[in-house]
């Protein structure tokens, strides 16, 4: 049996200005997938965090000559999100997840994004090939009611 997929693609210049549009994009796809408002809020936030990281870390700040690519693919079972960049890349496993208390003690203002993504989504998986393509694959499954 063939599954009907709906594919959405958004490419925007690397600028935090575009995070709002990225959120609208995800919300639209998620609504069509049939997620409820609370699930949509989670998807929106996870994708925002991922794209903010691309803009700030992969491309090192605003650089509108670079592109952030977001794909949303939905079928009966899940919404898959694929985010691509051609920036610096990093080793996700080397990122130490510090406790909130620790971060507070160190007066850190960051270090929360990846943790959020992991708890908001069902799957979070990086494939990093610096200089070529860095890809982040995230999945949120539809809970059948």
């Amino acid at each position: 049996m063939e599954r009907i997929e709906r594919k959405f693609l958004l490419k925007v210049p690397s600028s935090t200005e575009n995070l709002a549009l990225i959120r609208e994009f995800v919300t639209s796809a998620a609504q069509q997938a049939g997620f409820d408002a609370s699930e949509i809020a989670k998807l929106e936030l996870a994708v925002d965090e991922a794209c903010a990281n691309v803009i700030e870390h992969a491309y090192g700040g605003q650089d509108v000559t670079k592109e952030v690519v977001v794909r949303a693919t939905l079928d009966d079972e899940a919404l898959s999100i694929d985010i691509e960049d051609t920036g610096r890349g990093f080793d996700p496993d080397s990122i130490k997840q510090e406790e909130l208390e620790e971060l507070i003690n160190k007066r850190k203002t960051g270090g929360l994004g990846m943790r959020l993504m992991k708890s908001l989504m069902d799957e979070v998986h990086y494939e990093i090939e610096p200089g070529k393509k860095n890809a982040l694959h995230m999945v949120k499954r539809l809970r059948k009611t």
Partner: protein
Amino acid sequence: MPNPFSVQTVNEGDHVVIRLEGFVDAHTAPQFEQAVQTVVDQGQHRIIVDCEKMTYISSAGLGVFMGFIEEVRDEGGDIKICGLSPKVKQPFEILGFDSLFDFCADVAGAKERFSQPVKREE
């Protein structure tokens, strides 16, 4: 239109209210951070952040609370977070902010709380 945001700082005697409105994300959080910095630089440490009209917050916004809370508490003050709607409360809870920050229903509640001892683990 796609990203309405504003931050307003109101001095109210011995404390200050910072009112957030709209979307607090990596694009707008720097304005929020600047507002807190200004208040702290003026020596005010009894800070109430009113989130009643905040419709969204990502980690960039949450990081602002995180970055200032120690300094403010060291000075005998606190950052009270109030007016969170259920939708925007979610990321605060996921990250455990509810056990380290003082959440209040509204500004009035936050003012009252300033007369009580600060929640803090040493």
